[in-house]
């Protein structure tokens, strides 16, 4: 409930951008995830996008990408509430607000995320995972694929990649195979990415790395900030100058509901 309201506030200030590379290919994955580890019925689906450039690739949810490009193309002078909320409603909902940039030249992976008004990022160095190539091959979506397995931050994954697309990349932070990952799923079936489309972009699209205004931190610190934010979103919002006038008890009840909602979201991709 609260999420819609808050995502609106966040939406009103798009990450300001500068151009770094041009994406020639777009891979769209369907992500199926289970936000509540104790409830198989809590599974949700959404669409994720991987834009692939010569050196830089960008991975984000379709909701985030669409919202951001709508915002960027909106006449900035006419940023009325109506125009912004229209964007809010045109872009699909997303549970994932991060942007992941992989740079094949420098071998680093940067994850950007935005909490209320601030953009944060952390940097990691490839390779983040060691792959074991298995002899199994099959065909998925017309591509000849081969099996590979890995362990990444508390989960064991089975991936299927295709040498037919010689791009050493994949969804999320996954990469390092001699071909694009077409399908990857963890052994508990709590996170799965399946390729739904792969096409050449014509014309190519700019890959935009957020500006230097982002605050650099560690991966652990970002998790901590999100936890703090979810614990008490109101004080985070108040601290950025958004004020609320609550009657006695209203805020406490809202917070209680919010915490109960958060209890059902307990299953991140990276477990450690």
């Amino acid at each position, binding site marked *: 409930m609260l999420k819609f309201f808050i995502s609106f506030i966040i939406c009103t200030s798009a990450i300001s951008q500068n151009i770094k590379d041009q994406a020639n290919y777009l891979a769209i994955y*369907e992500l199926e995830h289970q936000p509540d580890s104790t409830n198989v019925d809590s599974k949700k689906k*959404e669409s994720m996008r991987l834009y692939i450039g010569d050196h830089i690739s960008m991975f984000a949810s379709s909701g985030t990408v669409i919202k951001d490009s709508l915002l960027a193309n909106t006449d900035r*002078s006419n940023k009325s509430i109506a125009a912004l909320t229209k964007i809010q409603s045109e872009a699909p909902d997303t549970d994932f607000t991060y942007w992941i940039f992989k740079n094949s030249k420098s071998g680093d992976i940067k994850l950007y995320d935005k909490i209320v008004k601030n953009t944060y990022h952390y940097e990691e160095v490839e390779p983040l995972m060691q792959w074991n*190539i298995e002899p199994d091959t099959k065909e998925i979506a017309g591509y000849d694929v081969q099996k590979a397995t890995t362990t990444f931050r508390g989960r064991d994954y089975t991936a299927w990649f295709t040498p037919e697309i010689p791009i050493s990349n994949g969804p999320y932070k996954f990469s390092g195979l001699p071909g694009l990952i077409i399908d990857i799923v963890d052994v508990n079936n709590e996170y799965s990415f399946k390729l*739904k489309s792969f096409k050449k972009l014509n014309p190519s699209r700019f890959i935009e790395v957020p500006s230097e205004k982002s605050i650099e931190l560690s991966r652990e610190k970002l998790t901590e*900030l999100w936890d703090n934010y979810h614990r008490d979103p109101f004080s985070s919002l108040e601290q950025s100058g958004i004020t609320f006038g609550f009657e006695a008890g209203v805020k406490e009840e809202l917070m209680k509901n919010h915490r109960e909602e958060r209890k059902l979201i307990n299953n991140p991709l990276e477990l450690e």
Partner: protein
Amino acid sequence: MKSLLLLLILLLSSWYTSAQISGNVKNEKSQNLSGASILLKKDSSSAIIAYAITDASGNFKLNIDSDLPKFLLEVTYIGYGKYSEEIKSRNQFVAIKLEPSSEALKEVIVKSEILQQRGDTLSFTVSAFKGKEDRVIADVLRKIPGIQIMPSGQIKYQGKPIQKYYIEGLDLLEGKYNLANENLNVEAVSKIEILENHQPIKVLDSLEFSDRASLNIKLKKDITVSGTAELGIGATPILWQAKATPMLFAKKRQTIVTYQSNNTGKDLNREINDFSFSSKGYEFNLNEENWLSILKIAEPPFSQERWLDNNAHLGSVNYLNKLQNDIELKTNISYLNDRQDRIGEKRTSFFTPGDTVRLSEVTSNQFFIEKIDGKVTLEKNTKNDYLKNQLEFKKTWNLDLGDLETTESSIIQSNSSPFTAIRNRLDVIKPIGKQLIDFNSSIAYKNTDQSLKIQPGPFIELINDSVNYPSFEQDLVEKQVFLDHSAGIRKAFGAFTISPKIGYSYQKRILETSISKEDIFTDRRFLNELDYEDSEAYLKNTLSFESIDEVWKIQLSSPLKYKSIQLDTFGAQRSEINRLLFEPQLSLFKKISANWEASISGGLNYEFGDIKRLFPGYVATNYRNIQRYENPILEQQNQNYRTRLTYRQPLFQFFANASYNYRRTANNLLFTSKIAQNGQTVVGAIAADNISSAHVFNFDTSKFFGKIQSTIKLNSSLSFSSQDRVLNESKVQVENRSVNFALSIDSEITEWMSINYNSSFTFSRLSIDAEPLQNIKNMKHLLATYLFLKDNQYIDIEVEYYGNDFETNNDNYFLNIGYQYSIKETGLDLNLSWNNILNTKEYVDIYASEFSYIENRYMLRPSQILASVKFSF
């Protein structure tokens, strides 16, 4: 031995994988290719045995972990043709050159993306959601996904307040939908429809996007009768609260009626909360202006239910009729009758040059409040036309009676202030070409006829040659006419937006006053006949600019007005003002870095002739204040400046901001007060240019401490104001200085318990001609604990302390407990509250006013328990 074995194994394994292939990949221009895939296979159709990816300089290294004698080496890279070569299983270096190829990669579209559709009408069948315990429609609404009902009764859909609450497509209650939502029996309803992104004004549909949803309640039958009732009792003394709300719905007609009553201190006006969105355009308010009053004591700063001794009745009738040609006619009328008793004491110290006048007044006041208000709305809302005309009226008959004891005398006061107001507002939206033009028109009329009677007669020196006299009466009649017409558009040019608006407003006020003693008119010094006209033609325009990267935001508003004021007294012209006014306002915002933000703004505006400072004959506003203004029209020029600096360190959850405000007002009038030993004050003004100013500094900081799950906030402010006055015939400079510190801690001990603590300290002091007077110290500590026992149970405990220190030290302690329990099976809601458990008798407050310190003692409601039950029929 062991290490030898290990060495052997190592040697063996290195021998086994000894075949290492290294190499380099370049393109046709001999540039290194990074990210190329090197694949090692048995043959072209088999699976990959080993692989490598080239590094930034195009190099790779590959270990062969197989006993095959030869392999197929393949190298692929986007945009280049595949390179294949058969190699033997041995250590070697291969230099590979790739040739460009236009062969496209195989594309695939398995399925189109899942994108959600919005903007639909969602329909929910009530029977699917209805539980045994659900009685009214609000109970079912709560269960519908995305719907949330706030404790105030406001409905939200996906976190945003709903826009309209329709019943069978008709908007009977406008914003007061609580009345239907909390009282319409769920048995009568067949479906609830949620209209997402609903634009209620059809002309704007598809032009102006709406983010809000509206609700439509569909009923089972063409004609429906429904309602609810609520009853509560308590002690001591005997307390009651009652409420009944019957309603009737037919295809073209809808009616909701309510009756409510209590003596528990609850404000009944809140029961008919209006959640509608305010319309655009200039508003002329319909509130009473009380010129005359009996002596009152300021209200305590906490919940009314702890101090208000009332006996209130409220009735409301709402009726809607659907006419022909898409026109709807709505009538909403409510009537309030209340009697309030307020007892207390007011101690005032007036500071004049060289003297201090002290006054103690014990008051026992009774307020009889009777009010009727209503509105008639005619609305046409079609695809090509939007027209809404709303006629509002309000009539009050208030009578205030006050018995007052001072150290010397006892005084009886009575003030009757019947009041009438009517306002008509017309909003029309017309599409002209691609632009929408908004027309707003507002016309209002107000009339009040007040009379203040005082026994024995006050102001004896002024009125009766210092001889006592038994009775005094101040009569005052004021009539006001107001109109405002405007038209506006909104347009964007690149990074700039302009929104010009042109309009004309006119205001006429007629004031007639007279003072009589023992029903005989006094002389002309105590009479007024004033005719005041103020007309204004205006062109308002706001220019805004926002840089693409959001680093800069600039807004300039530059209203241009031509103002003309005409003042006549006793039929003859007294003064006139004709002035062209430019009132610019500029604000700048800059985001300096991720941590720092700064803003600065400044503006200029003018104020003229408040009619309350224009009458040349004496008017007594209460038993010890009499005013007369034989001065020209008041002219004020205000300059406002504000600057603000914000610092955020989100990683440490630390925030701070500092701001400074400065206001400078140039006046052409200097106000005079003459205070007699008995506290009777004569107020006036003389023409003399003077300047008053105010400085306010604020510093706020907050930090979250994760280990103790608490947010600690610290606020401080320092304000300093100065103005010139004439007190008892000598000109003085009155300065008011105030310092405030506030601390708050919000803490969640566990998931079922949270604690809020707030405290504040205020020090204020007046200085007269730089001669400081005594300090006033105010202190406040509030501690609230919330316990969520189960889903259906909730307890809140509040402990409060208010203290102040002036000539004596005053401590006020309070304790309140509330408990809520919902019995789901029977549909009954039980509410138990125990207010003022410590049975604190009075509340004492001290504050600094213009040139006086005032100490108020307010008699509170005694300790009381109230139990209430709610059910529906």
